[in-house]
């Protein structure tokens, strides 16, 4: 039986989108894996909304600086050329349109690129964090998620049933089955995971997909 792609493979695919010189914010959770999958020869500076530009790899035990972390409270290091700053400067970068890309986790993305990622409907309380700001402010929003829920329900939907983070903000969806571009005319199925067909991806997708330009899964 064919398997969906691993988290590593999904992160690798997103990494291809991050070009030399880009400034990028990675959301908490799976998007953070993308930092380890930048193509050789490309320099990408990662922003953390708690006030860091130039997030480096995780430190070894003896190199931890308790004053230095990312927005998920993980210990981090800084790359040469990094800087730290307050929340106003940080969200000036984000809402002011200075970030080239943000990669955000998602519960649902709609055919129009609406993003829902801050609250599960069955839960009384959710967390906006910086997601609304990132979704509205970054030049390009890539949603990274599993193609279906644990129960097998599609996450790429006609219209989101979960509360929105921002309307019409996602330009690209990367899942464990597909790469989908959000275009004015609809969702373009650009790539399918190795071994999967466009029809199989459509079966697991609520929103209609444009399938006349499907290509092989892009690898490094």
């Amino acid at each position, binding site marked *: 039986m064919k398997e969906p792609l691993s988290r590593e493979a999904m992160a690798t695919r997103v990494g291809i989108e991050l070009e030399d010189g880009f400034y990028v914010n990675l959301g908490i959770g799976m998007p953070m894996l993308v930092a380890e999958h930048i193509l050789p020869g490309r320099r990408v500076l990662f922003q953390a909304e708690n006030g860091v530009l130039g997030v480096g790899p995780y430190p070894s035990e003896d190199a931890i600086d308790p004053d230095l972390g990312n927005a998920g409270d993980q210990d981090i290091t800084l790359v040469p050329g990094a800087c730290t700053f*307050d*929340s106003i400067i940080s969200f000036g970068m984000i*809402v002011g349109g200075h970030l080239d890309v943000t990669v955000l986790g998602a519960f649902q993305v709609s055919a129009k690129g609406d993003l829902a990622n801050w609250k599960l409907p069955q839960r009384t309380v959710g967390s906006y964090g910086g997601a609304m700001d990132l979704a509205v402010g970054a030049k390009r929003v890539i949603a990274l998620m599993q193609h279906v829920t644990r129960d097998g329900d599609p996450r790429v939907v006609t219209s989101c049933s979960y509360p929105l983070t921002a309307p019409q903000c996602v330009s690209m969806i990367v899942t464990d089955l597909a790469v989908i571009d959000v275009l004015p005319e609809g969702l373009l199925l650009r790539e399918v995971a190795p071994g999967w067909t466009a029809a199989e991806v459509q079966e697991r997708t609520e929103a209609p997909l444009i399938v006349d330009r499907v290509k092989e899964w892009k690898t490094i």
Partner: protein
Amino acid sequence: MAHDKIEKSCEEAVADIGDGASVMVGGFSGRGTPSNLLLALRARGLKDLIIIRNDASGGWKNPIDIDILLEAGQVKKVVTCFAVFGSPKKISALEQAVLDGRTELELVPQGTLAERIRAGGAGIGAFYTPVGVGTLAAEGKEVRDIGGREMLLEHALTADFSLIKAHRSDRIGNLVYRRSTCNFNPHMAMAAKTTICEAENIVETGEIDPDLVMTPSIFVHRVVHVPRSAS
């Protein structure tokens, strides 16, 4: 001496915070969080506090958070952007207090929260932002076309007290923050009637290079020395 703002203890520094006070609390997760001032505040046994703070989800590496006030039943309302962690398995102290009807929650997008605090400290009444348009965050708010883009009217936030943390302070209250501990601290310092700072290091006035002061002393009213080893 008016220009020596050093207090003897965290307890003395928070002694005049009363029931129903609004309190901003600096920090992002455990970093830059004035844990020792929070412990002293909890010991006052107050009620009906209004807490304004980036994260109220608890569960970070530093266990001393506003959770300790919520668990003690001292908080009437929380204004924050992180109310819970992603996993529904973990119920935060705030989530429990909201479910029990003990505490009111005002959820604000993070950048909007920062800007509302900045505006409050700078004498700006309100501002328009594109963040939150078309979402639950827009409920009850004026939406206006600004330069061809829909934006929400958001009002400034101020507080009776701010509890903040700095890496270094001089005796007059000029502050320096280190690495990612800066976050909300400088703006909260400006937005409260009384700002109380927990500083890891105290130096003589004049020892901090004026170019390197991150929060000017005019915004800081009390400083308590809590060396890192003691915190």
